[in-house]
């Protein structure tokens, strides 16, 4: 793990599984100093200068929600020897749903509900997240399901459609690959994340182990996944979110959040 990213002194890794590296860091003196912040590495700075992603990040940062990070800034820096784009927030993240150990089912559902509400806030402001996956559900409390939705990928589900790696291909709506991105794409990803969180494995576990082009081809003809053993409400919600036809999915992420909270209440 690198110990410096721009002028952020990295304290420790929160998540470092290669999907969306996330670390706690000291707030630079330039920004007032004296506190802990969270930094995410969004991806390589290879295609174009930071200015090309500036608009995307500003659109996202303008959306204020308790279910989204409290943004500080975005920047370009070097991480593990390569130039990257990163973003930082004052929100303190303790882990992600991908690495959560010992969380109750209810807490997982509440964390996912919080993320769904964050996605809904973005959707209402015209922003598609495009990166919802277990690594993007950032826990902000000890174990009670408090969470925010991580910063989105640099690609916004339009052009380019996505940046391979974050999110993992198994969490990419096949319709997004057809150029039909919309809030239904995030809802599909919420369903896949729900299934992964409740069953322990994603609905398409082999998608990350095959060459990218093959994976894309498979995703273009994705079969209907079979929900895992799970509470009936959860299984039904996952099935609906993962419907092949977008018009059969829940209409908003807010609706997904309400149903997750209901399932969490029922234990």
């Amino acid at each position, binding site marked *: 793990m690198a110990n410096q990213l721009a002028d952020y002194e990295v304290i420790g890794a929160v998540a470092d599984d290669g999907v969306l590296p996330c670390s706690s860091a000291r707030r630079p003196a330039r920004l007032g100093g004296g506190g802990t912040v969270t930094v995410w590495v969004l991806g390589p700075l290879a295609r174009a200068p930071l200015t090309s992603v500036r608009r995307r990040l500003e659109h996202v940062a303008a959306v204020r929600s308790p279910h989204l990070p409290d943004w500080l800034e975005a920047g370009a820096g070097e991480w593990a020897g390569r130039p990257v784009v990163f973003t930082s927030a004052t929100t303190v993240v303790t882990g992600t749903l991908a690495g959560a150990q010992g969380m109750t089912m209810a807490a997982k559902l509440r964390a996912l509900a919080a993320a769904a509400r964050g996605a809904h806030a973005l959707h209402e402001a015209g922003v598609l997240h495009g990166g919802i996956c277990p690594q993007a559900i950032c826990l902000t409390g000890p174990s009670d399901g408090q969470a925010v939705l991580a910063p989105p990928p640099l690609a916004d589900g339009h052009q380019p459609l996505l940046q391979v790696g974050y999110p993992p291909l198994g969490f990419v709506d096949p319709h997004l690959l057809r150029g039909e991105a919309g809030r239904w794409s995030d809802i599909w990803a919420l369903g896949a994340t729900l299934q992964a969180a409740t069953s322990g494995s994603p609905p398409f576990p082999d998608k990350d182990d095959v060459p990218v082009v093959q994976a894309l081809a498979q995703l*273009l003809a994705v079969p209907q996944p079979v929900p895992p053993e799970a509470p009936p409400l959860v299984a039904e919600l996952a099935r609906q979110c993962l419907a092949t036809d977008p018009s059969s999915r829940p209409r908003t992420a807010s609706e997904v959040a309400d149903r997750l909270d209901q399932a969490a209440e029922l234990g």
Partner: protein
Amino acid sequence: MPDKLEVLPGPGLVARFGDLAVWAGPQASPALQAHLVTEAQRLAGSPQCGDQLANSFISILQRGDPEPQAPFAVVGPGANGLTLFLHGPVQAWDSGRWLAPQPVPGWMVAPIGRPWPLIVLPYGAPPPPQSPPGNPFDLRSGTVPGAGFVMLRPAAPPTPAPSASVGPAVAGADHAQGTTTAYGGPGYVAGPTAQAPVPQAPGPAPTSPVLAPSPQATAGPQAGPVGAATGQLAPVQGGFPSQGGGPGQGGGPGQGGGPTTSPGPVPSAPPGPELPAAPPSAGNPNLVDLRSVLPAGTGPLSQAGAVTGAAADRPQVVGLRCEEGHMNHPRSATCALCGRSLSGLAQVSGPRPSLGVLLADDGSVWSLERTCLIGSEAGSSPEARSGTAQAITMLAGNNHMMAPVHCEVQVRDWGVYLVDRGAEGGTSVQAPGGPGWALLARHEQRELATGSHLSCGGRVFTYLAAWPG
């Protein structure tokens, strides 16, 4: 050269000082009207006076809205083109959509670039009639009665005009031969040479929120004056500062009587405390301050039921349409969208779906809905600017040259073609399973099969078809 500003006749007040224009409806109190004019006049010389005036209002409104039913608008230069601030029952057309606070009444602020024309008028009012060619009316400076205004591309050549600090509209000659602005808006076309394509006309009044109300927009812990997007705040007693504005000038609550909450300071010159300080990242091109960005003026994403509506303006092709209406390649056996059988169906015309994707060597994936231009400045090309092609901006690989538009991937009917644009270094293609790279002749085009690789400027792309070959 300042924009042309045509005042719409009717009750209300229009003021303009420099590039800063304001409007207030007749429901606005005299104190509010006076405050608008005074502040506009005071801030007009500042490079980002639109942001500053909007921020001063937001700082007041965050303490409570003294006049929620008073419509008013501010348009002026901001960090990202023009900044538009709307309050109460007012609407604005930015040459692409109607903007209005949601809920009404409420308020909103949005960067709107540099739209011509920009129309500001009361909420629900019909769009103004077409401006006659050579319309000479142009408010250059001052305050006049008016029910709204239209801001248009500056007339050319410039015509010196007298200015009036306060007084009737200045009827500066607007040389019509330079007025070519047109738009597909609500029926208002200015100038004799209207020729712009007509976008989807939204109708005379907004029916859906452009910036959805968000409680966090006003209640969030970081909701400072600039970060706020929309809001609806409980009325408070007091009012907008009376003419003269801030505390330094003895301003304070307006005519509304004894305040329970101060309407808050509105700074007298120079603008100060509630304006954003220079961010710590200012001047560093590698850093973007995200704490005080303005919300984008885009509407909510459509819901799942509207998925098929997005295809409405795509090119027409002949294919197979499943029972659900999804368009498919003529050789498809089952619908790629819903899986229904396509056997026995007759070919019909319909909007073309994406033909596949281009996968770039940096991991970015681009949908092939229309022709793509690849180059270091592809977005600056006329085709990209007009929307007939999409830009894939790519920097050159090490020791390579990438032309502004190096090559294109054309999408025609159900086929995808690589076309060389004659740039130095050329364009190469490798068929799937082929022996190696083949350099295209200048301006040669070649149909791509799924799995083909193409290379230009030291970058590599892979084409993946979404349909049977």
